[in-house]
């Protein structure tokens, strides 16, 4: 749907380098609404902590609010929603590599901490004084 919109609002670039002065024109109200939503969502994330919600619930809520906020900023404030798919894909697909990296490191660090607990004991050594003279 938004692509037709895009076609309507974008007269093609008047000039190769100058871009298009007709550019992004949307009613100011749209920005105010998004602004409001960002406030609301931030408040929600804050309340998650305020009420001390823990466990899976906490994670789900945090991530959901985070993604919603990120989505609003990228789609509306950064005008991604009105860009053509060519640009959208070029920007949104590569971070997949990062997500894969994150998944890898999640497994890796779980493995590390498991090893540490198994071989070094679960609790850190506190009674041994650490020599701080070096450094």
């Amino acid at each position: 749907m938004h692509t037709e919109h895009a076609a309507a609002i974008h007269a093609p670039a008047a000039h190769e380098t100058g871009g298009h002065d007709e550019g992004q024109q949307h009613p100011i109200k749209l920005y105010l609404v998004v602004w409001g939503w960002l406030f609301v969502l931030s408040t929600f994330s804050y309340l998650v902590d305020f009420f001390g919600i823990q466990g899976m619930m906490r994670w789900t809520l945090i991530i959901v609010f985070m993604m919603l906020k990120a989505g609003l900023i990228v789609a509306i404030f950064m005008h991604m929603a009105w860009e053509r798919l060519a640009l959208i894909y070029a920007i949104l697909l590569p971070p997949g590599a990062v997500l894969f990296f994150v998944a890898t490191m999640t497994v890796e660090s779980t493995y590390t901490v498991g090893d540490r607990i198994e071989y070094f004991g679960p609790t850190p050594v506190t009674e041994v004084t650490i020599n701080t003279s070096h450094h």
Partner: protein
Amino acid sequence: MVDVTARTIETAVPPAEVPDVELYHPKSWLTTWVFSQDAKIIAIQYSMTALTIGLVALVASWLIRLQLAFPNTFSFMDAATYYQAVTVHGMIMVIYLLTAVFLGGFGNYLIPLMIGARDMVFPYVNMLSYWIYLAAVLVLVASFFAPGGPTGAGWTLYPPQAILEGTPGYSAGIILMLASLILFIIGFTMGGLNYVVTVLQGRTRGMTLMRMPLTVWGIFTATVIALLAFPALFVGAVMMLLDRALGTSFFMPAIIQAGEHLKYNGGSPILFQHLFWFFGHPEVYIVALPAFGMVSDLISTHARKNIFGYRMMVWAIISIAVLSFVVWAHHMYVSGMYPAFGFFFATTTLIIAVPTALKVYNWVLTLWRGDIHLTVPMLFAIAFIVTFVNGGLTGLFLGNVVVDVPLSDTMFVVAHFHMVMGVAPILVVFGAIYHWYPKITGRMLNEVMGQVHFWITFLGAYAIFFPMHYLGLLGVPRRYFEIGQTSFVPPSAETLNIFITVVALVVGIAQLVFVFNLFWSLKKGRESGPNPWRATSLEWQTPETPPGHGNWGKELPVVYRWAYDYSVPGAEQDFIPQNEPPSALNGARAAGH
């Protein structure tokens, strides 16, 4: 069969122009030649700087070889110096020479010319890119003179060792090294954004992505992965700098050294390895993809035949680039990471071999039924195929996780990556310089000197690194100052080491012929005219040679065909430039249908 030439423009529409006022106009000698914003000048600055610092790395490789062949012989050589030489050698070769020369050098020169642009999209940023790169090189050179010398941590800079006593240059050297890398990345990003945006947004009329020469494809794709891979190194470098300078414990667990408990606690050394190789593996393709691209153009031009399977070549480049982000842990099979990763990463690693293999086949099939002119660039291109296949195939040993277990960290790995990176792309750099030198200077490089340079470099490099695999098979580890007495290395291996060293010195000296040729031909070389190789791509169609200010004179070229219309049946000549309008070709099949 798809008729690739059919994609033509029917009516010549006025080309998209950058008005003259928007071009960069140098005002003085200084802004013309030194602080230039012209991509061509920046390219030359990048290349000269890279080749110069490359010579330093070459000398370092002599030091390495001398020690390995004649241990306990040279008074200037001790373990610390050796490791400093190895580190400086590896780091310069990969980052400051190859990455810089391919992207900053060839990228700057060829991208605008090949896609029919007047310059990079943001010339000022492009200029900054070079100066920051130069600063990075200077900081690196400064580390040679820092107290304690340059870092001897190995080019992989693995902590904790890299920042602890016991490693040469652990105090100042490593800090300067990391600072230099951070600078390099910032500088590269400025240039890289230019290369990418110029290719995506700055092409001339009729130049679709699928008509671009493979050189542009290679450099463009390499730049894209560099922009996404360097961040990991950047972050790793910043964190290591903090560990070193502020005593944070990102990569540092509790450590006791020489009986003393250090203040570090709880960090994860293997995190650095992941960050490094998340960058490091794409990095090896950053220096391979431009070589792939350029060698395609050299082969096609000098075999007077279209590159075979152009679309396959493009998709292979793209899939290699994408896959390069999911194979990094093949450098960590024996690092002690989570063992089951081995299955996944071995599979992805070997899958990369398929698109790469297709590229190799297509190069060879381009020769098939060609009209092969054995010019110096062509010789280098052929040598590239041989050495790259050899090195790539040894990569399959290492990629196959369990085979890597005995071979990892041995001279086998050293042999692998020299063949595939230290020889093959370097041969392309040479071939490309012989090929494009006439466009840059208006004169040909001397052919006899070129032949001498070629034969010594190709056969010599092969003789250095092919036998080296067998040292690794024996079990000789890499980064060994001296192997000394062992039960498993026969004395004959010493002879082999001496042989390798002697050849390495000869090959090194032979590079002087090349350097001499570069300067000699500047004045004495045969005049080349605008298109000595009778090539199709746009850079050979410039109104002036060397290309003048704004590259194209009054009007931008309009492109009507792909870059590989060699020996088109029915055409008068055996090549049709990309900007030749269809109507001008009497009866040539290439006219749009």
